[in-house]
């Protein structure tokens, strides 16, 4: 049996430091967004239908009433659908800091099945506004965690490296990154057969079953993401349309979607969109996702019709982002794993069986 975090705290009170940083980071996020007139909201953690991401496994439970009726119920993998209903309802720019749940992941230093997520939505806005919001948010967190540091580059020491958080952060499109770091041009990247051929030439395992998405993903992890660990954070933007998730396609080039992810020190910190507001396209994507879930053998559930009905009423033009709060805390606390920022990490509660 390894020592649990609360036992370590009992032995050595100095390891409480990352938890103080955690409190400061979360306070700073709230203060910053509220000063920008974002409304803080709370949405349910028990849902009849969770959101439809095909690759995420969910936690399922049962809701029972004394009257005798029982319902399938799920823990949300993100508060996204609920927040979008509120945007339709007219609450304006809003945010939530809450627990979200993802099942079936591996034990890793960057994941915990129950984790703290920040989602904020700005309206009217698109994903470029969100990039600037994220830059400003990190400046605010930096001022709160290091109140005596007036260095205008916002230096962040992390695991013996020094990062600079001052804006503007690096911005590189997915197509540029594939060209620059993997030597793969845009046409090759977007084409299934061409991408598999390029991957095979690089020495990756390619079979009849290898999908475009798997090859794209593997090149992304092996050849692109390691380069995004430079001195400054990086926005990787304009994803291939098939990777749009809940983002709007680019009007100027519908082969790509207005989505970005933000990286720092090897952590993917957030995933942002110019939010898709077209209900028809959203419904198609949700149904395709549910179909894909079936193929992948994930827990089945129905479409959140309420979400589609909301979009039918008209969602304002919105930019939004989901960020991993535990990862942000790990960075500012200078600890290697998100579990170092949790009083009760999953391995303490559910230790590995072997």
């Amino acid at each position, binding site marked *: 049996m390894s020592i649990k975090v609360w036992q370590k705290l009992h032995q050595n009170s100095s390891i409480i430091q990352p938890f103080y940083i955690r409190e400061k980071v979360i306070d700073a996020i709230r203060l910053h967004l509220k000063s920008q007139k974002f409304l803080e909201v709370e949405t349910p953690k028990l849902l009849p239908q969770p959101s439809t991401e095909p690759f995420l496994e969910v936690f399922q439970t049962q809701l029972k009433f004394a009257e005798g009726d029982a319902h399938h119920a799920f823990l949300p993998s993100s508060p996204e659908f609920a927040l979008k209903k509120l945007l339709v309802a007219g609450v304006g720019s809003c945010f939530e800091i809450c627990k979200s749940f993802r099942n079936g992941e591996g*034990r890793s230093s960057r994941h915990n099945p129950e984790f703290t997520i920040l989602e904020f939505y700005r309206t009217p806005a698109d994903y470029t506004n969100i990039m600037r919001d994220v830059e400003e948010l990190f400046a605010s967190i930096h001022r709160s965690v290091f109140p005596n540091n007036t260095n205008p580059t916002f230096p962040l020491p992390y695991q013996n490296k020094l990062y600079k958080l001052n804006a503007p952060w690096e911005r590189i499109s997915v197509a540029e990154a594939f060209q620059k770091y993997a030597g793969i041009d845009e046409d090759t990247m977007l084409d299934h057969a061409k991408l598999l051929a390029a991957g095979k030439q690089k020495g990756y395992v390619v079979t009849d079953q290898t*999908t475009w998405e798997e090859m794209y993903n593997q090149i992304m*992890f092996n050849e692109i993401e390691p380069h995004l660990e430079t001195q400054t954070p990086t926005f990787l933007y304009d994803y291939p349309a098939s990777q749009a998730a809940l983002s709007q396609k680019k009007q100027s080039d519908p082969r790509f979607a207005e989505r970005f992810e933000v990286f720092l020190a090897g952590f993917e910190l957030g995933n942002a969109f110019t939010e898709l507001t077209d209900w028809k396209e959203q419904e198609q994507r949700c149904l395709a996702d549910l179909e894909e879930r079936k193929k992948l053998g994930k827990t089945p559930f129905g479409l959140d019709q309420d979400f589609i009905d909301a979009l039918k009423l008209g969602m304002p033009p919105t930019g939004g982002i989901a960020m991993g709060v535990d990862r942000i805390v790990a960075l500012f606390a200078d600890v290697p794993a998100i579990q170092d920022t949790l009083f009760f990490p999953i391995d303490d509660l559910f230790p590995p069986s072997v």
Partner: protein
Amino acid sequence: MATIKAGNLKKGIFILFKNEPFEVTKAEFYAPGKGSAICRAKLKSLRTASTQEFTFKSNEDVEELDVMAKEMTYSYMDGDDVVFMDPRTYDLVNVSRDLIGDQVGYLIPELSMYLVFLDEKVIGVRFPQKVTLKITDAEDAVAGDTINAPKKQATVETGMTVHVPLFIKKGESIIVDTTSGEYVGRAN
């Protein structure tokens, strides 16, 4: 050789990667949420001892090497080699100290552990999770230094230093985790 799925890679197994033998020193199965599942691995080359990271598709085939793990006991140091003995046959096996790295500090006489063989050659060593070490030197606790670091350095019988709580004294035996190097507890 056996074929396994990359999603089943585990720390401590040996694989053939790009036609070279590697030890998997870290493997994290990872379902990124927005894409298909992958396995992030750290691989240590058995030929050059250098490490590299590689991300596998979790459903891709990987060749696992057939290795044999044999229980041996530590005997003595011989220059740059560490000599182990098979307790059943009394055969001696020399292992390069480089293969063991910093963990030489856990080698106490008669320590029983597993050596991993590939075609008669030792390619890895596996220490027990915990070893018991005797403290040969420990400074007395200094009062006032207890707020930030209620631990002190102590030297153990192998010459290695370990961070221990202030109450640990010279002559006591402690249990140390061989992976993290951390003090686990007093050995009664």
